[in-house]
C-alpha cells in the first residue's frame, strides 16, 4: 500500500487520498479510529487494528494512537504492555505457537517446551537472535482432542512430540541457511 | 558453668562487631557472665562444639561463608542473625542485581590500582556465590537482631536476655532496620 506513493506525479485527488505521513497504512488505521469517534474507550480496538495493519506496535505508532484518541502516552503504553496479544517488537519470520493448555500439558507439552527452547537457544515469548523463529506460548488453542498441539505458521499441528516439533523448526532453519 | 558464646563475621563490614565493642564497660560485666569461645576478636582458629549462643554478622556471600553457616548451625543451640546483613542481606546483597562476573570484574579489574586480575583458582580463596543471601536462607535462625549496625544497647539487651535463657522479645525500640 505504501508503494502507491512512489514515482507518479501527484494530482490533487491522489494527494488527498494519501496520508500526511506518506504511509497510507495510517489511513486504514484512521478509519478504525474514526469509526470509534476518536474515543479513548476504544483503545484496545484501535490497538488490535494497528497491530493487524502494521504487524506490531512500534513506539511512534503508539504515540500516533495516543494523540488520535487524546490519551496520555503512559496509559497507551501501559495498556499495550498489559495484554499479551500485543507485541511491541517485530516477530520472527516463522512462528511456533505451543499450546500449554491443561490437556496439552497433561499430554507432555512441557517436554516439547523444554526441548524447543533448548534447540532454539531462546525462550518462549522471544524471537531467535537471527529473527527467524518466534516462540510463542498459548494458553489454550482449543484443540484439546489433538493434544499436544502447536500452531505452526498459522496451521494447527496436533499430537506432537518433541522430535516432530524440532523437525519443523529445523526445516525453517535449513531454509535460512540455504538462502 | 558459664554459657558459651561465639560471634562470627561472614560477609559484612564488621560494623556490627565494632558496635559490640561499643558496649564499653559493659563488656567487663559480660565477660563475667559468659565464655567467649570463638570470635574475630578472640584468637580461636576453629569453631568449637556445644556453643550456647552464636551471633552471626554478615550475609552469606561465598562458599566459605556457606560452609561456616552449616558448621555454626550444627554446633550452636541458638543462632542469632546479628545486624541487617545477616538478617536481610543489606549492603552485601546490593550486588545481587548484577551478574557475579560483572561484580568481580568491577571490583578487581576496573577499580584495581595495580595488577588487575580476578583472584580465583586458589584453594585459599573462597568462590563468590551468585547471590549474597541472608543467613536464614541457608540455615534455620532462632533470633534476629536488626540495625546497620545494631546499637550497643540493642546488643546488650539481646545478649543479656539470651544469657538468662530467654528469647529476646524485641520491642519496637529494638526492631529497627537500617
Amino acid at each position: 500500500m505504501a508503494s502507491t506513493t512512489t514515482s507518479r506525479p501527484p494530482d490533487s485527488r491522489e494527494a488527498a487520498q494519501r496520508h500526511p505521513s506518506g504511509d497510507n497504512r495510517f489511513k486504514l488505521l484512521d478509519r478504525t479510529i474514526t469509526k470509534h469517534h476518536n474515543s479513548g474507550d476504544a483503545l484496545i480496538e484501535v490497538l488490535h487494528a494497528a497491530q493487524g495493519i502494521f504487524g506490531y506496535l512500534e513506539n511512534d505508532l503508539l504515540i500516533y494512537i495516543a494523540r488520535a484518541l487524546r490519551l496520555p502516552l503512559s496509559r497507551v503504553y501501559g495498556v499495550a504492555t498489559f495484554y499479551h496479544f500485543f507485541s511491541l517488537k517485530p516477530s520472527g519470520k516463522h512462528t511456533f505457537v505451543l499450546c500449554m493448555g491443561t490437556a496439552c500439558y497433561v499430554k507432555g507439552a512441557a517436554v516439547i517446551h523444554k526441548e524447543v527452547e533448548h534447540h532454539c537457544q531462546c525462550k518462549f515469548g522471544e524471537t531467535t537472535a537471527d529473527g527467524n523463529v518466534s516462540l510463542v506460548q498459548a494458553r489454550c488453542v482449543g484443540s484439546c482432542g489433538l493434544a499436544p498441539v502447536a500452531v505452526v505458521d498459522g496451521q494447527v499441528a496436533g499430537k506432537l512430540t518433541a522430535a516432530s516439533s524440532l523437525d519443523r523448526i529445523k526445516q525453517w532453519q535449513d531454509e535460512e541457511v540455504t538462502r | 558453668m558459664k554459657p558459651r558464646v561465639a560471634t562470627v563475621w561472614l560477609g559484612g563490614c564488621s560494623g556490627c562487631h565494632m558496635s559490640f565493642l561499643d558496649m564499653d564497660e559493659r563488656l567487663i560485666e559480660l565477660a563475667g557472665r559468659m565464655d567467649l569461645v570463638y570470635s574475630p576478636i578472640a584468637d580461636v582458629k576453629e569453631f568449637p562444639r556445644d556453643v550456647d549462643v552464636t551471633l552471626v554478622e554478615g550475609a552469606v556471600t561465598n562458599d566459605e561463608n556457606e560452609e561456616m553457616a552449616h558448621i555454626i548451625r550444627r554446633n550452636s543451640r541458638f543462632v542469632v542473625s546479628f545486624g541487617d546483613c545477616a538478617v536481610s542481606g543489606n549492603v552485601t546483597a546490593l550486588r545481587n542485581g548484577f551478574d557475579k562476573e560483572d561484580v568481580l570484574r568491577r571490583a578487581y579489574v576496573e577499580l584495581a590500582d595495580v595488577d588487575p586480575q580476578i583472584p580465583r583458582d586458589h584453594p585459599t580463596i573462597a568462590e563468590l556465590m551468585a547471590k549474597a543471601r541472608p543467613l536464614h536462607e541457608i540455615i534455620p535462625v532462632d533470633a534476629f537482631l536488626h540495625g546497620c549496625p545494631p546499637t550497643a544497647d540493642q546488643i546488650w539487651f539481646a545478649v543479656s536476655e539470651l544469657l538468662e535463657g530467654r528469647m529476646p522479645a524485641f520491642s519496637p525500640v529494638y526492631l529497627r532496620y537500617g
Partner: protein
Amino acid sequence: MTTEDLHELAEKETDRQRQLRDRILYCAAAGCVSCGSHATRDAIKKALKERNLEKEVEVLGTGCMGLCGEGPLVKISSDGSVYERVDEETGRRIVEEHLCEGRKVGAHLIDTSQPFFSSQQKIVLEHCGKINAESIDEYIAAGGYGALARVVTEMQPQDVIEEIRKSGLRGRGGAGYPTGLKWGIVRKAKSEQKYAVCNADEGDPGAFMDRSVLEGDPHRILEGMAIAGYAVGANQGYIYIRAEYPLAIERLKLAIKQAERLGLLGNRIFESDFNFRIDLRIGAGAFVCGEETALLRSIQGRRGRPRPRPPYPSEVGLWGMPTLINNVETYANVAPIINRGSAWFAGIGTPKSTGTKVFALAGAIRNTGLIEVPMGIPLRNIIFDIGGGTPEGTEFKAAQTGGPSGGCIPAEHLDLPVDYESLATVGSIMGSGGLIVMDSTSNMVEVAKYFMDFCMDESCGKCIPCRVGTVHIYGLLDTISRGKGTTDDLALLEELCVMVKETSLCGLGQSASNPVLSTLKFFRHEYTDLLSKPESFVPSVSPDPASAGPADGPAANDGHDSTTHA
C-alpha cells in the same frame, strides 16, 4: 419483523430442508477444522458434484459435535449416522457408499448408542452439530428467536425475571450466583442507561465450552442477551470475547449482522418499544479479564485490573451504569427456559443446581470432547461411561475441575454428584466447565506447579498477595519438586496459600491457591515424600562442654561427626 413474519421464515426454511434428499453435516468447530474438516467438506462436495447431487444434497458446517478427539466428524441428517476421522477419501466413500448405495462405511461409523451419546442431555448444545452455524434461517426454523418474540410481545420484564428465578438457573461462569436474582438487582437499579454484557473471555486452559457454543449456535447467545436486555432495561449489549477465538468472532459478527438485517436486533424489536444492540469487544490475551470488574475495565479500553466489590457491576458497571454480566452458557440457557418453562428446567438436575452443565473433557481419557450432562450426575458416570475411562494400562488418579481456580478430585470421591455445592465440599469448584482427567502418570506437585505458573503469569499485579504471593508459592513448589524442600518450606507454603486466598483482591488471586490446597489435601504424601528435615543443632554427647574440642572442620563436615567424636 413481527411474530408472524418469524413463523413464516421458519416455515420457509423447514420446507426448503424437506425438499432436499439429504443433508451432510460436517463439524466446523475449531477442533475439527484444525484436523482438516474443510478439506473433507471439499471432497464431499466434489463427490456430490461428480454424481450431480449437489442440488439435492446440502453440505453444511455445524457447531461442535462433541467427540473432538476423533475429528473430523461428519453426520448424515436422514438417519443420524455419525462418522469419525473422516479424511478426504472417507468423505468420498460416504457419498458413494452411504448416500448412493445405502451402505454405511463401517470402519468410520460411530456407535451412537454408546454412553458418550446416550448419557448426555443437551439444552445448551441442542443445536450444535444439527444446524448450520452461519444461517439465521436454520436457527429460526429450529424455533430460534421465538422466545424473544414471546418475551417482547407478551411478557412484562418482571415476569421474565420471575421465570428465570423460578427456573433456578445459576451463573455458569463458575461462581453459581442465581441468575434471576442478578437480573432483579439490575432491573431495580435506577438509571437511564443500563448494559448487558456477555462474558466470553473463556480463559481456563483446557476449557472450550463457550467457544463451541459461540461457534455452533451464535444466535442463541444473541437471543439470550436480548431477552436479558429486555428484562433488566438495557438497550446495549457487549460480548467480550477473547482474541484467541477467531472463528467464534467471525460467526458472531455474521450473526449480529444477520439479526440486525431481520430487525431482531436494533430499534423497535418485534414492533415494540424495545431497542437492543450488540457490539463485540475483542480481548487481547489476559486471563484476569474473565473477572467481571476487570472485564468492564477492558471494554473501556483500559488495563484489565479488577477493583474491589462492592459496588457490584449490577449497580456500578460500564461507564458507571448498572451492568448485567453473564457468561455465555448462562445466556444460552435463557431461550429454552422461556420456551419450555421454568418448571421444565427446574426439573432437570438437582434442587439447588438445576439444568445441565457443559464440560470440556480432556486429558488422560479416551473420549475427549464436549459433553452436556444434567447437574448432579456422579463424576464416575462422566469419566467412565461418557468419557470411556482412562487410556489402556493406566489408572484414574484425579479429575481436575475449575481450571487454575479449581481443585483435584481423587478416586475416593468419584461418586460425588457434580453440582455447585458438592464440588465445593471437596475443595473444588464447578468452574466454567473444564474437566481434565489425570491418570497414574501425573505427578500432583507438578500439576499444582503448572497451575501456579499460570496464575503467576496471569496475575495483573495490582494487589500484593497475588502479585508476589503467587511467585513465592511457585518458588516453594519448585523447591519442593526438586527435592530441596524442608518441612519448614511446606509449612510456609501452606501458610502462604491461605493468606493469598484470604487477602487477594479478586477471584483470580482468591482461588489461585486452590490447586495447591486441594492436592495437598488429597495427595499430601506426594509432597512429603520429597521433603527433608531442616538442619539443626547436634549436641555433643560429652556432658562437659568445656572439654569439647573444636568442631568438625571444613574437611569433615557431614554433620554426624560431632557425635562420633565424643
